[in-house]
Every structure is written in structure tokens, then in C-alpha cells.
């Protein structure tokens, strides 16, 4: 019973040790992440040019960055979906239109059948118009978000080092000072 308790204690302590090491490692990683995230304005613009919102996110404006990222992703997804649908339906439309045009020369075809096909082709045309509009609107929104993102990154987003510095001013700062040739520590906080 006693040996079992000892074993359990050893295992528990080992687990605790492992967790502590992992915690330190995680903290170090987080620290390095924070350091990596301190980007210059130039890098922020480059990231924003790569994909909307990335620059803003790394520069500290997370809500703005995520909003732009989502808006761009959704509008691009809509665009791609509408575009794919458009090209697929366009093939069928062109084929049916060609059949309609050639029906006159095929022999023993009828006006009734041609009219049915024409109505079908007309419906397809309306559907293609809708898809074309959806595709254009989605693309315009994507382009708009992209342009706004670039303008925002260029003129309205400060680099994260600047924003962190501004953040530091609001926190408690510790500085070493000399008072009457005696070294000391000054703790200050701005409100």
C-alpha cells in the first residue's frame, strides 16, 4: 500500500514536472511569438498586400484585421462559386443555343419543339445573367475590401512597435535612477 502511494507520488510529481517544463516552453514560445509579431509598417503593408487583414492583425488591430480577412474570404468564396457555376452553365447554354440555331436544317423538326427549346434557353440566359451579376458584385466587394485594406495599411495602421510603445505608456514602468549619488528604482504609472 505504501509502495503504491510512493509510486503514485512519483508519477504525479513527474507529470507536474513535465507540465511545468511544457508551460515554460509554451511561455517562451508565446514570448517569441509576441516578438515576432512586432512588425514594421512596411511589413504590415506587405502582409496586407498579400491578403487583406493580415497587416492589420499583425500590427495589433485584430478586430479590423479579422473583419477584413473574413470579408475578403467570403466575397472571394462567393466569386469563385458564382464563377464556377457560370462557366458550367455557360457550356450547357452554348450547346443548347447551337442546337436551337441548327434545328432548322436538321430535317423534320418542328416549330413547337424549337419554341420549347427557345424557352428553355431563355430561362438559362436569365440564370446566367443572375450568376454574372453575383460574380461581379462579389468581385467588386473583394476588390473594394482589398483597396480599402491597402489604404488602411498605408495611412491608418500604425506599426505594432508603435502601438506596443503606446500600450507601455499606459502601464507601470520601472526605471533605475540616481538620487543624490545614490542608486535607486523609480516605479511610475501614467493614467
Amino acid at each position, binding site marked *: 500500500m505504501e509502495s503504491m502511494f510512493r509510486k503514485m507520488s512519483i508519477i504525479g510529481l513527474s507529470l507536474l514536472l513535465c507540465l511545468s517544463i511544457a508551460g515554460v516552453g509554451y511561455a517562451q514560445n508565446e514570448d517569441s511569438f509576441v516578438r515576432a509579431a512586432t512588425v514594421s509598417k512596411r511589413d504590415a503593408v506587405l502582409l496586407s498586400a498579400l491578403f487583406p487583414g493580415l497587416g492589420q492583425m499583425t500590427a495589433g488591430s485584430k478586430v479590423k484585421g479579422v473583419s477584413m480577412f473574413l470579408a475578403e474570404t467570403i466575397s472571394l468564396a462567393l*466569386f469563385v462559386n458564382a464563377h464556377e457555376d457560370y462557366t458550367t452553365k455557360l457550356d450547357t447554354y452554348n450547346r443548347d443555343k447551337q442546337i436551337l440555331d441548327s434545328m432548322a436544317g436538321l430535317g*423534320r423538326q418542328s416549330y413547337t419543339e424549337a419554341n420549347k427549346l427557345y424557352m428553355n434557353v431563355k430561362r438559362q440566359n436569365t440564370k446566367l445573367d443572375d450568376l454574372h451579376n453575383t460574380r461581379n458584385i462579389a468581385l467588386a466587394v473583394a476588390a473594394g475590401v482589398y483597396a480599402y485594406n491597402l489604404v488602411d495599411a498605408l495611412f491608418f495602421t500604425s506599426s505594432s512597435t508603435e502601438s506596443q510603445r503606446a500600450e507601455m505608456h499606459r502601464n507601470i514602468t520601472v526605471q533605475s535612477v540616481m538620487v543624490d549619488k545614490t542608486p535607486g528604482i523609480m516605479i511610475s504609472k501614467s493614467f
Partner: protein
Amino acid sequence: MKRIIVFLAPALIAAVFLGCSKDHDPAGFGKYESFMKKPANLVATFERSTDEISLSWEMPDTNSVKMFSVAWSDSNVFDLGRRSSEFTGDVNTTRKMSVSHVLRAIGQPANADSFIVYFTISALYSNETFNEFVGPRSDVDSALVYKK
């Protein structure tokens, strides 16, 4: 930054223009609609003495008309009923058809005492553009077959 804008702006504009290009045109039906005419004033009458159905109609423009197609059905919603058709073989605007032939063709007993048959006529066009193309249907007319 300037380089980014100089590079990206044309790419953006090109993407918008390429993406926005409309690759489909509306289909036209003018080729059929403007050229073809439907026969008018179709009259279908049951002649009891000869047990025939007599048809007569008018065709305003017989240009490129090779013959006519007579179609009949047991429904006034023509395409929903059982229907049959045959070509006249000439450009005459009258035709007589035996009742038994008409009824049998749509799956009815040839000796039916009373029955309503719905008729329509179309012109068969033949020229360089239209290869024996059956034109638009005339308005439907009915004939009451009554033998009692």
C-alpha cells in the same frame, strides 16, 4: 510601397475586367418567328353521311410551304392528350379523313358512338434554311363525332 501599388493596381483592374466579362448573348428566335406563319381559320366538321371528318383552313403566305401537317388529339390541351399526325402531301387547304382512321390513331375504338376530336394544322417549310421544318400550329378546332 509605391512599387506595390504600381504592381497591384493594374493587376486589380485587370482581374476586375476579366472577371466581369460577359461571355453569353441572349438567344434569338427571330429566324423561326419572323419567317413562319400559322394556318388560319381551321374548321373541322363531322360528315355523318360519309363517316368522314372534313377539314378546311387558310394559309396567308404559301412561300416555301411544301405541304401541311394535320395533327389531332383527344384533348383540347393538345400536347397532354393522346395525339397523332400525318402529312397531306400537297398544298391543298382542304382534307377529308375517315373517322375510323382518326379514332384508331389515337387509341379509341373505331366505332365509338360519340367522341370529340381536336385538330390543328401546320405548314411544312422547305428551302435553303429550313429542311422540311414543321411550322407553328394553327388554333385548335374540334369536331364532334356523333353516330346515334
